[in-house]
């Protein structure tokens, strides 16, 4: 197992190396260049030259790249041009917000999606099945930011049930250790703060989780349908096993393999969706920060973010692959 993990991590290196080159060239080809972006359109040539010298933008590309990759390997992602703080620090304060949002969205998507897909398959061809198929189709085609608008309008504006934006009410005087606001509230015993932060997570979480939910429903349904008529299920019935055992240990467990793959694949969707969802709900996470970085042409932030996402993406895929052998012992990791 350890050797497999090591091998997979080693395979990641060439991809990341290629990505860093592409990113480096990409960032240098942005219009206006970094100095103009930093100083604005009306910057004097002297000021631009000064900034170029300060940040090293005037040196040959190869030197810039070597400096960049050297620092990267030491965990130094550079300093954000917009805020003047180290990129890693900016991520550290914002990533927990996005992670909190993503976790809520995933809990919603899996918690509702798997049972719904399972039930749809059990009631194949009947009302529940048809409606879940239609709903999941709608869920896939509704743009996440539009869904965010609908939820915000209905639940926050029309019925005033939930907060419309932000991560926590400004009135809340909460202590923050980890930047996971719900967790912070629970750790410090400020339960009202935790509850308030949780309420702020519900709408963006629902908006973000709906597309993965729709996909999970479909895959679970298809997978259960395929498994529930398998010979070993018939055999289990013939042996007189309890229906609960058959469903839990035979059907659901065997049907889970494609579902787990799908859940892993949703990560990219969730991160892209987070950028849009956070924009609608003014949720101060990494997605909104990235959006500002794009408009401010904040090179170091953009580079760091994409490398960060690529690593995260690869690690999640590794975990998904490894989880196969836990779910299904027949699958041997190679």
């Amino acid at each position: 197992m350890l050797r497999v993990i090591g091998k997979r991590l080693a395979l990641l290196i060439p991809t990341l190396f290629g990505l860093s080159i592409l990113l480096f060239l990409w960032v240098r080809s942005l219009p206006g260049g970094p100095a103009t972006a930093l100083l604005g359109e009306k910057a004097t040539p002297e000021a631009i030259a000064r900034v170029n010298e300060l940040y090293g933008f005037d040196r040959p590309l190869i030197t810039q790249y070597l400096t960049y990759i050297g620092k990267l390997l030491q965990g130094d992602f550079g300093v954000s041009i917009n805020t003047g703080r180290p990129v890693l620090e900016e991520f550290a304060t914002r990533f927990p917000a996005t992670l909190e949002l993503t976790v809520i969205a995933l809990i919603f998507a899996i918690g509702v999606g798997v049972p719904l897909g399972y039930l749809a398959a059990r009631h194949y061809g009947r009302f529940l099945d048809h409606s879940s198929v239609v709903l999941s189709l709608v869920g896939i085609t509704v743009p996440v930011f539009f869904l965010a608008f609908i939820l915000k309008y209905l639940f926050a504006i029309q019925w005033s049930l939930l907060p419309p934006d932000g991560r926590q009410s400004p009135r809340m005087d909460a202590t923050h250790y980890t930047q996971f606001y719900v967790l912070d509230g629970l750790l410090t015993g400020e339960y009202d703060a935790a509850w308030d932060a949780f309420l702020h997570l519900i709408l963006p979480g629902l908006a973000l989780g709906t597309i993965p939910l729709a996909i999970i429903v479909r895959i679970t349904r298809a997978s259960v349908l395929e498994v529930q008529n398998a010979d070993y299920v018939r055999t289990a019935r013939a042996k007189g096993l309890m229906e609960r055992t058959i469903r839990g240990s035979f059907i659901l467990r065997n049907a889970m393999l494609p579902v787990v793959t799908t859940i892993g694949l949703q990560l990219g969707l969730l991160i892209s969706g987070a950028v849009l969802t956070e924009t609608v709900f003014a949720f101060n996470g990494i997605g909104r920060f990235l959006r500002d970085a794009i408009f401010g042409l904040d090179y170091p932030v953009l580079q760091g973010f994409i490398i960060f996402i690529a690593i995260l993406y690869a690690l999640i895929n590794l975990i998904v692959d490894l989880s196969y052998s836990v779910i299904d012992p027949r699958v041997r990791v190679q």
Partner: protein
Amino acid sequence: MSTILPPAAGGSAAPNDPAIDTGRGTGLWKDAFLRLRKNPQAIVGAVIIGLFLLVAILAPLLAPYGGNDLPGRTSITPTTIPGPGEIEGFPLGLDRFGGDVLSKLIWGAQASLLIGVVSTALGLAGGMLLGILAGGLGGWVDNVIMRFVDILLSVPNLLLAVSIAAVLGQSSYAIMIAIGVSQIPIFARLLRSSMLSQRGADYILAAQTLGLSRRTITMSHLLPNSMGPVIVQATLTLATAVIDAAALSFLGLGGGLPQAAEWGRMLTYAQVELAVAPQLAFLPGACIAITALGFTLLGESLREALDPKTRKK
């Protein structure tokens, strides 16, 4: 001729070489079309897309006003925006700038269609080129191309598009190119694997035995028979392209005038007005969702119709 192609592993017969099927009327595509015609899901999808196409093409005739016109500029005040039916001559009301919402929705269909089709065509062309090179030549070319594709795939699709659009500057062309390029890896991968699965087929072996050149085999035999999954993907991608285009212009990467008739753009400005004029968000949002639904329905029925498992019936 050197044998670059391995012999058939399972000895699976060519399911549908057009050269063999010609004239017998049971070709893959005709078969698929017949099956599509019987599928209500496909018909609904086709009707939605048909309407959307019609509106997009006839936009100059259908829309009461131009896409960037502000005919109701005098009727809006900082506190009031007339909604649907509240003002004569503007059936769906006005927006923040004084534009006619109905006209903007109609012109928006044209903009979305243009971006969707052009970007998917770009992605398809780029992906096919890489796929043919990788799947047809194999060896180190395949290796280099697939590593490149892997790198592109290591970044989520929409983020890749956002990054590319940021480099190109804010314009609708930038959005087309960005979405197109972000689709290349999927098409390349799909075509390559589809070609690889066909490479061992008997009809390829037959073509080799006849002494046909590698180019002829790849382009006239391997490629046409590997296109099925790629065409299905292209239909489904049109749905994503429409949604992604709206997302990019929603994020403000579209450029042009702020009142430009574009569904995603309309949503950006509707954000501020959500409490007073929710229809400004709901109408363009519904248009995006319905268009995407049409392409998805058609794409999925096409996938079913081309699936050899359902074909046998």
